[in-house]
């Protein structure tokens, strides 16, 4: 209980800090949201009317405290750029980003772990060396470029893959898969290329440990040794890494959503920053902070599920 309270306090402090930093950045960033939105063709009269109407004539710190005030009542405010409530915009886009994140993580887990095991079993053999080289390559690939490649080779040749836009799961599961698979692969492939190495090393490290010898001495076959004991134990360090990549994946979605025209949080964030949409930026930043802290929390809980030493201490 105390642990959960501490977590919640940490979450609140982090969110407050992040929002303050965002505020500070906006303080020094030039650019008037109304003008950016309307462009040079706007009628001055109209700009004046709108600025007043949206309260943007107020100094930024007043806007900030208004926003904080709203936040305390659960109101994230109104987006300037889209003339819609921030919460509505964020919630509309959540399914996309969350689906993409979960799909990416699933891909990473489903590929990196078996691949890591595969390579660990063949330590220092040819396949191990080959995959290590692939790692180097994987780390060097920029994700937008990889996205383009995937679009060119998969998107263009298989109508199953969609190269642009999003189809909600409720409309068509196949459509949603088609829309998300390429972007998920785009984020996942470099992650897999790097992370399977960690899995390999975690497993190799476990294989060195005394308990493995004990298990073997009981006459347990190598398959069981690997999948029941070693893998389960390796999950603890692996989980740490996967907790970390979640943040990287969320960051990855920002670029990939641009490339694939996916209407997710990342795309919204970029738009909101370039349009100086202060309430929207704050809303998204709060959301992302929440997600990252929440995932860390989840990882901690998973730790305790996996590791009785944590659970029972």
């Amino acid at each position: 209980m105390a642990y959960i309270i501490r977590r919640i306090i940490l979450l609140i402090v982090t969110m407050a800090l992040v929002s303050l930093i965002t505020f500070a950045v906006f303080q020094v960033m030039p650019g008037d949201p109304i003008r950016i939105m309307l462009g040079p063709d706007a009628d001055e009269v109209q700009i004046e009317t709108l600025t007043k109407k949206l309260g943007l004539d107020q100094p930024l710190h007043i806007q900030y405290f208004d926003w904080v005030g709203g936040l305390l009542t659960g109101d994230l405010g109104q987006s300037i750029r889209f003339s819609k409530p921030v919460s509505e915009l964020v919630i509309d886009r959540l399914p996309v980003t969350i689906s993409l994140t979960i799909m990416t993580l699933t891909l990473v887990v489903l590929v990196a772990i078996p691949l890591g095991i595969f390579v660990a079993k063949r330590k220092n053999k040819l396949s191990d060396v080959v995959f290590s080289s692939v790692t180097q390559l994987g780390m060097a690939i920029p994700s937008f470029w990889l996205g383009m490649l995937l679009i060119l080779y998969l998107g263009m040749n298989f109508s199953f893959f969609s190269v642009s836009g999003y189809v909600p799961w409720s409309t068509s599961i196949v459509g949603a898969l088609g829309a998300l698979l390429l972007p998920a692969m785009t984020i996942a492939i470099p992650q897999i290329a790097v992370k399977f190495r960690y899995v390999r090393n975690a497993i190799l490290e476990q294989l060195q440990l005394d308990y493995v010898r004990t298990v073997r001495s009981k006459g347990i076959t190598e398959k069981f040794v690997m999948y029941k004991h070693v893998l389960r134990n390796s999950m603890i360090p692996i989980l740490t890494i996967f907790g970390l990549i979640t943040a990287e994946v969320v960051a990855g979605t920002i670029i990939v959503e641009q490339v694939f025209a996916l209407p997710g949080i990342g795309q919204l964030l970029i738009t909101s920053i370039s349009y100086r949409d202060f309430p929207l930026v704050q809303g998204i930043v709060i959301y992302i902070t929440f997600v990252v802290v929440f995932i860390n929390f989840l990882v901690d809980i998973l730790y305790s599920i996996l590791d009785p030493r944590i659970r029972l201490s």
Partner: protein
Amino acid sequence: MKKNKRWFMFISLMLVCVLLISACSGEDGATPSTDAPGEDVKEVRDEIKVRINSDPDFLDPHLATASISFQMILNMFEGLLSPNTDGSLKPAIAESFELSDDGLTYTFNIRDNVTFHNGEPVTVEDIQYTFERLMGTNSGEPLSSNFDKVASMEAPDADTFVITLTEPNTNFLYSLTALEAAIVPASNDDQHNDNPIGTGPFKFVSYSPGVDLVLEKNEDYWNAELPHLNKVTFAFQSDDQSALMALQAGEYDLTSVPAHRIPEVENDFKLEYQQNNSSLIITFNEENKPFDDVKVRQAVNFALSKSDIIDSVYSGYATELGSNMSPAMGKFYLEGLQDTYVNDIEKAKELLAEAGYPDGFKTKLTVSSHNVMYTNVAQVAAENLKQIGIDVEIDVVEWGIWLDRVYRGRDYEMTAIDLTGRPSAYDILNDYISTNDAENFFRFNNAEFDQVMADVLLEPDVEKQVALYQRAQEILAEEAAAVYIADYQVVWAMDSALEGFNMYPFFFLDMSELRFTE
């Protein structure tokens, strides 16, 4: 084993989460693109997906100002009049009008069978409401300065609407198109942005920020023959590369294509080249040294090679200009001005020396980063200007900063920008340049130009108007108000089965006559 149970619980929990999330996404959204070419066999397609670079600023036509918004929403709205593809006007909600001899009173005859998308007929009260809203009569929040000189408005009967001006304005009719004054229903007050209702050939279905704007056929459109399409989806995609791929994958039916990528699409898609009436310029802050001196501006004009820029930035798909006015404006355009400053380095050096800068000078060219076009132009220009000793530092800034610093703050030396096309010759020449325009960021100041622009508003005779507009163009060229480089073409690539693609001298993707032929 107990641990397996715990794992199972965890995995099911995750699954439930995913399902819940996806269920929330629910309701609407685009259907999957099962309409890939070749898949449907017989039926002629009646739905189209058009790629647009970014979201509209507002759906409320009175709030919207970005040209990109009108590109879409003009399909939903009409004014009393409508622009034609050649820059002239045609009747719309007003069937006809009369102008009094003193040029002050406009009497509009309202078309009978026009209804709003919500089924209500258009009444003179709605028209009255529209103009009052724009003028801020009741709210005190004016949304346009176009109607400052309106003396009165009245509706003597249900089919007639009369507007009286305080002084003649030959450009006034251009304020009555949907670009400036879309007629909207009074009953929809306060909801124009969330649920836009107009009288145009298409009606609003949904808008998902960052995703798309969906319109559908207005079955009760007063012109019974139009439109042809049942559904139009404007999908937002800012990245040209991705858009091109989506076009090739059959997910988009229509998109603009950067000129240098035309070879990739010209075999499989139908291309249309829109002379879009926008002028790419490099201009100066003419209040400060050295650009307050006309000789310096002329020297820059002589030094810059328009053809270099057109070739390198637009792959040749552009027309050289001599002033703001583009050949797209037909008779208003003065032919020949583009040759006022033919690339001549010696001449440029001479002028610079006369102005007191025999060794040139250092300056800064500030451009926005939101379109690579500006940076590309700036690089060519900097190369050109180096030849006459002008050392140009290129400063690339964010669009918001450009607007703040250059456009509004006028805190700059040189900049490159394109001025969006307008249907009205007056607007093209007056905006940004005339000293009575608040948007004069060049700080151009020429008494004769201002006089000509004032005279033209009072001149009822069209031929004489043309003469005045042409004089204005001459002044801009002579005074080297800017380096008028080119009207670049927007190249549209579309499904080859599409027909009826109309092009206007401003940003408008007219969907009303568009249809698939097979």
